[in-house]
C-alpha cells in the first residue's frame, strides 16, 4: 500500500496498442525505484489494485474513438491534478485517425457491413480535443527516458526537459551520416520532433515521422525538396505525412494541400 504523502500516479488507456504504457514496464532498471517514490494507484495493465482518485499525475494513452470514451476522458480529467498524454494516439489521434481522411462514406461502406450497429465515432481524436492537457509527450512509441523525465518533472512541479527541435539535431548529436544528403534517401527528419534518438537514420533508413511534427515545421519546404530534389512521387510523400501522426495539424494540413495540388495538375 502507498505510504501517506506519496504522490499518486494513474495510467489510463483509450484506443491504442498498449505500447506507450508498456514503456513504463520496460524501465527495467528504474521500475522498482519508481514504485518506491510514487504510489502507482491505478494501472490496469500491471495491477489489479485500484485506488480511487484524485491522482497527482495521470498518464493517458490512446485516442478517443467512442462516445463512452468521450465521457470517460472528462472523468479522468476531473480526477487528475496534472494530465499528460503519452504517445501519438493520445497526442494526435494515432494511426486509427486515418479514418478522418478521404471519403468517409465510401470508407465505412467498405469496412462496415452494418455500420449502424457499431458504436464508434467517425473520427479518432487526440485527448486535447476533449479536455485540457498539461503536457503532450510525442512518439510512436514514446521514449522511456523521456517518460521518466516527464514523471519526475510533474511530481516536482517543474517543466519537463523535452526538446522540441527536429530529428536532424539528434542525428548530429549521434554522429549519423545524413541519409538524405549522402544517399538521397527521403527523410522526414527536418520536420519531425526529436525524442527517438534519430534511430532510423542510424539504421540507414529515412525517418518516417513517428514522433510527429516538431515545433514550427516547414512541411511545405520538405514537400518541395522531396519531390524536386529526391524525385519522390506525391503518393509516397502523402503516405509519409499521413501515418502515425496523420491528424497532427501540421502534417494533416500539408497532406491535404498535396492532395489538392494533385487534383489541380
Amino acid at each position: 500500500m502507498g505510504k501517506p504523502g506519496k504522490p499518486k500516479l494513474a495510467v489510463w488507456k483509450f484506443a491504442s496498442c498498449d505500447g506507450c504504457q508498456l514503456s513504463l514496464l520496460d524501465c527495467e532498471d528504474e521500475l522498482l525505484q519508481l514504485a518506491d517514490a510514487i504510489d502507482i494507484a491505478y494501472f490496469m495493465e500491471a495491477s489489479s489494485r485500484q485506488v480511487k482518485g484524485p491522482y497527482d499525475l495521470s498518464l493517458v494513452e490512446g485516442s478517443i474513438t467512442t462516445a463512452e470514451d468521450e465521457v470517460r476522458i472528462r472523468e479522468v480529467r476531473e480526477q487528475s491534478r496534472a494530465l499528460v498524454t503519452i504517445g501519438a494516439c493520445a497526442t494526435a489521434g494515432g494511426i486509427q485517425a486515418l479514418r478522418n481522411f478521404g471519403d468517409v462514406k465510401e470508407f465505412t461502406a467498405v469496412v462496415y457491413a452494418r455500420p449502424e450497429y457499431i458504436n464508434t465515432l467517425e473520427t479518432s481524436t487526440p485527448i486535447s480535443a476533449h479536455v485540457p492537457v498539461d503536457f503532450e509527450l510525442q512518439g510512436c512509441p514514446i521514449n522511456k527516458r523521456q517518460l521518466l523525465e516527464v514523471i519526475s518533472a510533474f511530481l516536482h512541479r517543474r517543466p519537463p526537459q523535452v526538446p522540441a527541435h527536429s530529428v536532424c539535431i539528434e542525428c548530429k548529436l549521434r554522429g549519423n551520416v545524413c541519409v538524405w544528403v549522402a544517399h538521397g534517401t527521403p527523410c522526414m527528419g527536418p520536420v519531425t520532433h526529436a525524442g527517438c534518438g534519430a534511430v532510423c537514420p542510424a539504421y540507414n533508413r529515412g525517418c518516417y515521422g513517428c514522433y510527429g511534427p516538431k515545433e514550427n515545421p516547414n512541411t511545405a519546404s520538405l514537400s518541395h525538396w522531396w519531390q524536386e530534389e529526391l524525385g519522390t512521387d506525391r503518393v509516397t510523400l502523402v503516405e509519409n505525412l499521413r501515418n502515425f501522426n496523420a491528424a497532427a495539424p501540421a502534417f494533416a494540413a500539408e497532406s491535404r494541400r498535396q492532395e489538392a495540388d494533385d487534383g489541380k495538375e
Partner: protein
Amino acid sequence: MGKSKTIKVDYLARVEGEGALYIRYDDSGVHDVKLKIFEPPRFFEGFMRGRDYREAPDITARICGICPVAYQMSALHAMEDALGLAPTPELRALRRLIYCGEWIESHVLHIYMLHAPDFLGYDSAVAMARDHPNIVQDGLEIKKAGNSIVRLLGGREIHPINVRVGGFYRVPDPGELGKLRETLERAQEMAADMVRWAASLSFPRFERAGEETYEFVALSHPDEYPMNEGRVVSNKGLDIAVHEYEQHFQEEHVPYSNALQCVLKERGAYFVGPMARYNLNFDRLSPRVKQLAGEIGFPRFCGNPFQSIVVRSLEVLYAFDEALRLIDSYQQPSEAYLEAEPYASRGCAATEAPRGLLYHRYGIDEAGKITDARIVPPTSQNQKTIEEDLRLLLPQYLRLPEAQLQGLCEQAIRNYDPCISCSTHFLQLHLEQGRGALQ
C-alpha cells in the same frame, strides 16, 4: 436448483487491453460465460487498403505494442510470398534472432508481471517485489536481455524500425553481436533458474478429458522449433500448408464482443500459443531445455493451462539457447535486403507470435498498393477455448468463497496471456444479429 449467482469483472486487470468477464452459474452448473471485449476496434484491415505494400510491417506493428515483431514478421513474410521473394539463410537467421528477443521480452513480462502475482497472492509485481525482491529483479533482468536483442536488431524495443520486406535496413556486424552475446549468456543462467522457480509454484488442478480435450494448433517445422515458417498442425490430425488456412478456419462474430472468435470449421474451438507449440514440437527444443524439463519432472505434453507459466519459462530458456546458437553461427549477409518490384499478386503467411499463431493475408495491385488485408491474431483464436475452460473449471471449484472463485477465473483467463489490443482490430463486421457490437 440453487440460487443463481454471477461473477462479474467489469475491467480485467493484468491483461493487455480492455476486456470484461461475465459468468452466470448455480449449483447445477454454469449457464453463461462471456469474455466480453469492449476495447474499441481500430479497423486496420479497412485503412490499410490503398497503402503501400512496404508499409505493412510498420503499420501492423502498431496493432500491438507488446508483440510488434510478430506483426512485422507475419506481414513481411506474406508480402514476400506475394512477390516470390525468398530470404537468404543469413537473413532468415537474423529474423529468427529478433523473434527470440520478442519471445523473451513478452513471455517474461507475462510470467512475472501479469501471471505470477496470481500464484503468489499479490495484485501486482510491484507489490510482489516487497516480499520477493530477488525474484522480481531477476525477472526484470531477463526481460531486459530480451529487449536488448530487439533493440540491436530492430533499433528500438517497441515498434522496431529495422525490418523490411526483403530483409533489414541494416545488418549488425559480428562485433555488435559479440557484445550482445555477453548479456545473453548471463541472462541464460537466470532463465534456467526461472524455469525451476516456475515449476515450484502450486497449480490449480484442471484437466480436460474425452470430448473436451484441447485441440492444440501450432506451426511445425521438420528441423527447428517453429517461429517464422512451417505447416499448420494439430494433435487431432490437422496438417495443412499456411495457404490452406482459410479453408479450415473461420471467424465468427459474437454480439457481446468487439473481437471475432476463430474456430476450426470441422471441430470448433482450439488452442494456440506456447502450450500448443511445446506439445506439438517438444522434440525440436534445445537439448538443454529438454534436459531441464526432465530434471523438474515436467511432462512433454502438458494439458493443464495453469502450467502454461512453466511452458513459457521453458520457451524463454529455449529462446536464449537459440539466440546464442544463431549468434555463434552468424554470417553477415552481403546484402541487407533483397530488392523487389511489385506486381499484382496475393500472399499469406503465419508465424508464431509469443501468444500463438498469427496469420496475415494481403492482396496488392501492380503499383504495390494493398487491395485487401486479413489478419487473424492469436487471442481471437483462443477466445472460445478460454470461455470453455471457465465453463468446465467452475463446477470443480464451487466450494471456494466467491472472491477466490473470481480470482481463479481471472487467473484462468491469464493462462492464455490474452492480448485484447490485438484481438479487436480486425472486425470485418459481418454482424449476424441486430444488436450493437459494443454492449
